């Protein structure tokens, strides 16, 4: 029987790692994800997890050790956040280019300066072009589930790409929630033992990994990463379906909530989706036709799903905890990419909010809906709306 425990998001991630039975975990502590490797090191020390826990001197070394371990042919896991992820940046490309299915848990946190340890998505969003799959969890249960699913997708022969699973700093990493821990046998059935498909050490089969790629080969090598990411779209659907069969919880690439007759759809990711759903319920009671959509899988970007969503509403309001300076929200530009060739498209609005742990309140969301309503009659007034900005101190 699955066991129900009350735990922090970090612990849920550690439990997911334990259930997946990686052979190597290399990690460096960083707020807010410190507890993940801490808990895993406990599991290893207590003999509950048969794995090598490598203590490294930086995040750059952590991911490098993971690349080495994964290239040697074992399941590999790590966790980090924010500046730590930024320090890994260089190696993230290498992990994807070498097609190593490493899974990484990330406590989504803001980037400096100023130094800020609280939640937004700038860290993972900034790594969107590295070739890693990206999943965003709404609650602690999803953090655990998506890590398991991420292993399955990453290790699929058609994909073979590393994956990161983001869960919001403090809002999830340090908040206790009831989490259902699946049975080890069911997880074993779901994931199976990791059998390396291409990258493994064998004296009978000498290979060169991470080799020099001349102009004659580099472009083809990059194309295979693109192709793998495209294949992932189908694989993710299959894995989510199998996940539902095994564990009874259904995941969607984009989860829609009360969108059927909605005029305004609030599109968001991560834990903010919980707040937004709550808000949608409240507005529905008031008779406002409003819905919500949560992007669970951000890379590969769900282009088809966004197109389908766009057909349902008059306004798509993108609520983002990140900013790409000089253009606007990163997800907004992706949604724009998805819709650019559509004949009929809704108004798409870009809202930046909740950066660096700023609370996103119902008042903020009321403001969003007000702007969306006005946009229907009067058109779009601003390229980017900053919600909850204290203009008086600027």
């Amino acid at each position, binding site marked *: 029987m699955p066991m129900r425990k009350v735990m922090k998001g970090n612990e849920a991630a550690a439990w997911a790692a334990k259930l997946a039975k990686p052979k190597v975990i290399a990690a460096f502590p960083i707020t807010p994800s410190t507890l993940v490797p801490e808990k895993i090191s406990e599991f290893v020390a207590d003999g509950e997890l048969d794995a090598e826990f490598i203590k490294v001197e930086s995040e750059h070394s952590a991911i490098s050790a993971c690349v080495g371990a994964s290239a040697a042919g074992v399941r590999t896991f790590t966790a980090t956040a924010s500046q730590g992820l930024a320090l890994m940046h260089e190696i993230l490309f290498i992990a994807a280019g070498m097609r190593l299915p490493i899974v990484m848990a990330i406590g989504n946190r803001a980037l400096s300066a100023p130094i800020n340890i609280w939640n937004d998505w700038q860290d993972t969003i900034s790594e969107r072009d590295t070739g890693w799959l990206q999943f965003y969890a709404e609650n602690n249960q999803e953090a655990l589930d998506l890590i398991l699913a991420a292993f399955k997708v990453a290790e699929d022969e058609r994909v*073979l790409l590393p994956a990161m699973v983001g869960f919001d700093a403090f809002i999830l990493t340090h908040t206790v929630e009831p989490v259902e821990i699946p049975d080890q046998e069911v997880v074993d059935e779901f994931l199976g033992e990791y059998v390396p498909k291409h990258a493994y050490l064998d004296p009978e089969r000498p290979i*060169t990994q991470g080799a020099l790629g001349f102009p004659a080969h580099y472009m083809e090598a990059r194309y295979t990463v693109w192709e793998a990411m495209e294949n992932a779209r189908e694989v993710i659907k299959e894995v989510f379906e199998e996940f539902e069969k095994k564990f009874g919880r259904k995941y969607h690439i984009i989860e829609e909530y009360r969108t059927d007759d909605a005029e305004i759809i609030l599109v968001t990711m991560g834990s903010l989706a919980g707040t937004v759903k709550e808000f949608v319920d409240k507005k529905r009671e008031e008779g406002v036709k409003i819905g919500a959509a949560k992007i669970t899988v951000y890379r590969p970007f769900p282009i088809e799903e966004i197109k389908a969503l766009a057909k349902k509403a008059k306004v798509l309001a993108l609520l983002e905890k990140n900013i790409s300076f000089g253009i606007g929200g990163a997800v907004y530009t992706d949604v724009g990419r998805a819709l650019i060739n559509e004949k009929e498209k809704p108004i798409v609005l870009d809202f930046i909010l909740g950066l660096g742990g700023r609370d996103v309140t119902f008042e903020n969301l009321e403001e969003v809906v007000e702007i969306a309503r006005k946009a229907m009659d009067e058109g779009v007034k601003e390229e980017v709306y900053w919600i909850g900005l204290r203009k008086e101190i600027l």
Partner: protein
Amino acid sequence: MAENPFKENIEMVEKEYSEKMTPGAIVYLPGSSVVNKTGSWRVFMPKFNRDKCVRCFMCYIYCPEPAIYLDEESYPVFDYDYCKGCGICANECPTKAIEMVRETK
């Protein structure tokens, strides 16, 4: 100069690697590193004095590339296509038979 003993491997690697892209651009045969001529960015080159050489093989053993072969008489032969000019051979040579000189184009 002695013929490169990896010649056959190099040809195989070049053929395999150019015909099919492997996942992660892995090269499945040894010897691909010798396809890339690493001697092209050398600053210093080893100059060998045959008279001083006692045929101890130290240069051959220590060369990290390995860009030194032994000829029929066990004298070292330097493969300048792959020698990076690191100077380890000159440093290890007990009789100072190898001197590093600045290479001029």
